[in-house]
């Protein structure tokens, strides 16, 4: 998968709005593999909706979204499963971790599926992000900032052409944000993938190719 295109896309709930000024909604946007994008937004402008639409989780939008020129509305269940395992990774704003499992189990449940990252690599990321001692703690007992780091590791445990990162550092200090940015960039460069990160203020310290205002 090399490009994601949004053609005149708009969340269905915004269809009544008249004074819409956006670089994304109702525009023709082309996102390319290998580039780094920042989507800046105010609250309630549909930042998380954008991620859900592209990820095939929600379909309540008008206009079309194309992967390599193919409209994603017609994709089958099998195709989506395939895309979510091999081509597209998404770090959800609400993280969507399993509170009943430990930090490590949350990562492993994804990596067992894709069988992509080595155990040492995962351990190394836990170390870098300063949560090595939390590997066996239940997610439900960890702070949101710690959970964000676990979710980031999980998002990297798969091959992808694009990775969507929805407000990844809202609860992180600058040092940890920097480390997270470095880990992300390393993996993305290794895979030659594209990054789309969103932010309502504080954003990941990366070299952005393009900044889009939502």
């Amino acid at each position, binding site marked *: 998968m090399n490009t994601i295109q949004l053609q005149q896309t708009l969340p269905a709930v915004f269809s009544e709005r008249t004074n819409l000024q956006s670089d994304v909604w109702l525009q023709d946007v082309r996102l390319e593999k290998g580039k780094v994008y920042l989507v800046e937004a105010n609250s309630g402008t549909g930042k998380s909706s954008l991620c859900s639409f592209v990820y095939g*989780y929600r*379909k309540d939008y008008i206009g079309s979204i194309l992967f390599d020129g193919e409209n994603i509305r017609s994709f089958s269940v099998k195709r989506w*499963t395939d895309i979510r395992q091999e081509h597209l990774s998404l770090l*959800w704003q609400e993280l969507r971790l*399993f509170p*009943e*499992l430990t930090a490590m*189990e949350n990562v*492993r449940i*994804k990596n067992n599926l894709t069988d992509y990252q080595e155990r040492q690599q995962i351990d190394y990321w836990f170390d870098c992000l300063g949560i090595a001692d939390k590997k066996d703690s239940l997610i439900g007992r960890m702070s949101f900032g710690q959970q964000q780091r676990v979710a980031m590791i999980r998002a990297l445990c798969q091959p992808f052409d694009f990775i969507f990162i929805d407000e990844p550092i809202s609860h992180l200090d600058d040092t940890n944000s920097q480390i997270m940015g470095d880990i992300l960039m390393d993996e993305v460069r290794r895979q030659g993938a594209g990054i789309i990160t969103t932010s309502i203020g504080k954003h990941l310290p990366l070299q952005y190719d393009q900044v889009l205002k939502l």
Partner: protein
Amino acid sequence: MSLLWKLLRQHISIPQFAGFFLANLVGMVIILLGTQFYTDVQAIYDSEDSFMKADYLIINKKIGAITMLTGKSVAFSGEELAEVEGQPFVEAVGFFTPSAFNVRAAFEMQGIANMSTDMFFESVPDRFVDVASDRWHYEPGSSDLPIILPKNYLDLYNFGYASSRGMPKLSEGIVGAVTLHITVQGNGKSADFNGRIVGFSSRLNTILVPESFMKWANGEYVSKAVEPTRLIVKVGNPTDQRIAKYLTDKGYETDTSKLDASKTTYMLRMVVGIVMAVGLVICVLAFYILMLSIYLLVEKNSYKLENLLIIGYSPCRVSLPYQLLTVFLNVFVLLMAYGILLLLRSIYLSMLMGFFPHVTLPSLLPSAIVGIALLLVVSIINICVVKNKVMSIWNRKD
């Protein structure tokens, strides 16, 4: 898989599944027991007389003083036969054809018995006789002749003749192995045959030979035509009130004990049918409990299931643990039910075998087939329902 299971087993309610398990077990045992009991009892009924299929009546005209005096024929005419055939409760009718030639049989067993007697033959259409066609067959010109004897004859010999003369008693097996020397005489000709007893019948009070032999012999040794005096009638439902009424109206006779035996079989079939229906209802209810538990389970775990789908698990893979769970439960119930069936069967068989010691028991196949068929149907429905439920989670944001 283990991590997936660790997640998905949350909220499994042991009491609910135990409830399903017990209810389904009870239903399953009833159904299996009904099937097996019916098969076993049927085998016992059949072993009483394996040559005549159930639900046959033998009809003849009443012989009274008037018939004797007036010389009125006790034979059935063509019209009378057609009338019987036209009755709504009748499924098939056949003649008893009597032999109109002389028959003499000699029975020899070295040092045990040596008897000879005049006798007669009758035949019915082969489709009414339940003996493998290769054993119940006569080629004109052959000297081998299969015969079915009334069981009474053996009893008469064993309990009357043999006891009074101090001679050994004979079992069916021994008599079956002995050859009867048959001499047929008539129309100025005679011939010898080797009679082979293929069985004893307690329902038929006559000496049966194959229809093909009778046709040939009556043609060969008899000059005048033979009229049938008895009819064999297959009825659909032996408890039908119209049968008794029709027979009385026409002045026909039948052996009521046979009618009673048929009625008993019919009642047995009905009772077993009702019991099995109850079992089925219990099974359906149990199945309903299982479905409710699974629905509840999936509902309670729907956020987890959704997140699994979102991180790339396919609906099939997410459904699998619940599908395996239900199938495993169903298989476990079936195995337990089968164990209980074997136990109960050994109890009732020990009772039945006391009454009927010579019965060869049928296999456990019928109940096994019913059990496995039920298992398959229920499991397939379970699998589909779980999959549908997971797919509804996949589609919920549409």
